[in-house]
């Protein structure tokens, strides 16, 4: 990368030396330098952010797994009211992150074959939707705007905190939206260069109360929890799940942004190479023309 920068600088110096170079050559060379430097510094920033985000994601995933344990034996009523929470963010320049989540939500609501809810195809297309992140909000508002119950933004600028997730869960519970279960649509981190949309289902309070009736273990009922504690657990596990999804989505976004910047710098260098060819050809043509003028002029004397 540094070698290429000095090459560009050398090329620009060589271009400026003969006075017959076309105008704007010097500007073009320095612009190229600036472009290269911008792209590579953005790439470095994205890489450090990615490492941090990945660490947070690994820590946050434990919350999600602990959550899943609780619901393993909860009853799974098909056709229950579902509240969809779409997890994305406000910033762009990250490839297809936001559209992947928006499209997955659309497929789920349309009970498409490729819906992220693999087993459950009985989704009501008028299900309430809550969106975290302006980008997905703008993508979904035209087709599913009437389903929107709440939208959130300003999450994901830095690594999402549990306070963010708790605030979202609190607002959703307070808003009085009726649901039996919550489906969180987010991007799952597959690897540093790929992600895939996925859905996490969080059962509501009712399902927790009834859990154990249809499985071999009378697990939850054995605790003889008071209703209050069950409600608390349902609310807390919603916050947990939102946190796990937020953190994983954030890690996916950082990696996608780094990859997008990578591709952009690669395309920029390709473009620079072809422009350089064109520029050299133009310069040589100009020099040739001047030489011809001089020679014809000299022969006239």
């Amino acid at each position, binding site marked *: 990368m540094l070698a290429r920068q000095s090459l560009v600088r050398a090329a620009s110096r060589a271009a400026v030396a003969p006075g017959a170079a076309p105008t704007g050559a010097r500007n073009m060379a320095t612009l190229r330098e600036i472009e290269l430097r911008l792209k590579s510094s953005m790439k470095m920033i994205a890489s450090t952010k990615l490492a941090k985000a990945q660490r947070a994601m690994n820590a946050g995933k434990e919350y999600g797994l602990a959550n899943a344990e609780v619901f393993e034996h909860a009853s799974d009523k098909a056709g229950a009211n579902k509240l969809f929470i779409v997890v994305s963010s406000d910033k762009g320049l990250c490839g297809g992150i936001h559209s992947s989540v928006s499209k997955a939500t659309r497929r789920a609501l349309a009970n498409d074959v490729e819906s992220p809810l693999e087993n459950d195809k009985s989704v009501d297309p008028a299900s309430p939707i809550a969106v975290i992140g302006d980008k997905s909000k703008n993508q979904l508002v035209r087709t599913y705007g009437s389903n929107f119950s709440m939208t959130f933004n*300003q999450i994901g600028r830095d690594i999402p905190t549990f*306070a963010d997730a*708790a605030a979202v*869960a609190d*607002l959703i519970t307070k808003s009085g939206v009726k649901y039996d279960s919550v489906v969180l649509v987010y991007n799952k981190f597959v690897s540093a260069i790929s992600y895939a949309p996925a859905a996490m289902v969080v059962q509501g309070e009712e399902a927790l109360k009834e859990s154990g009736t249809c499985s071999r273990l009378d697990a939850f009922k054995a605790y003889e929890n008071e209703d209050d504690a069950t409600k608390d657990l349902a609310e*807390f596990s919603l916050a947990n799940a939102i946190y796990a999804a937020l953190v994983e989505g954030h890690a996916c976004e950082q990696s996608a942004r780094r990859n997008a910047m990578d591709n952009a710098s690669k395309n920029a260098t390709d473009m620079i190479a072809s422009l350089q060819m064109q520029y050299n050809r133009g310069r040589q043509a100009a020099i040739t023309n001047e030489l011809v003028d001089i020679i014809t002029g000299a022969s006239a004397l």
Partner: protein
Amino acid sequence: MSAAWRSIFTYNKFAQITARAVRQSLKEEQRIAAEKRGLTAVRYQQWESGQGGAQVVLSEELAAKSS
């Protein structure tokens, strides 16, 4: 007999309030590290039949309520 706070706010709010109390009681060094984990700048909008309401900054709303 259920606790008095249940009728006022949700469990998540309760957890956040207690967490804030714990964070403020820590020693200086740990407190600074912990405060970062409690930051949230969430803004939200209520939606009615395809129309979004005003965007409300949650922390400002809370400050207004308590003042």
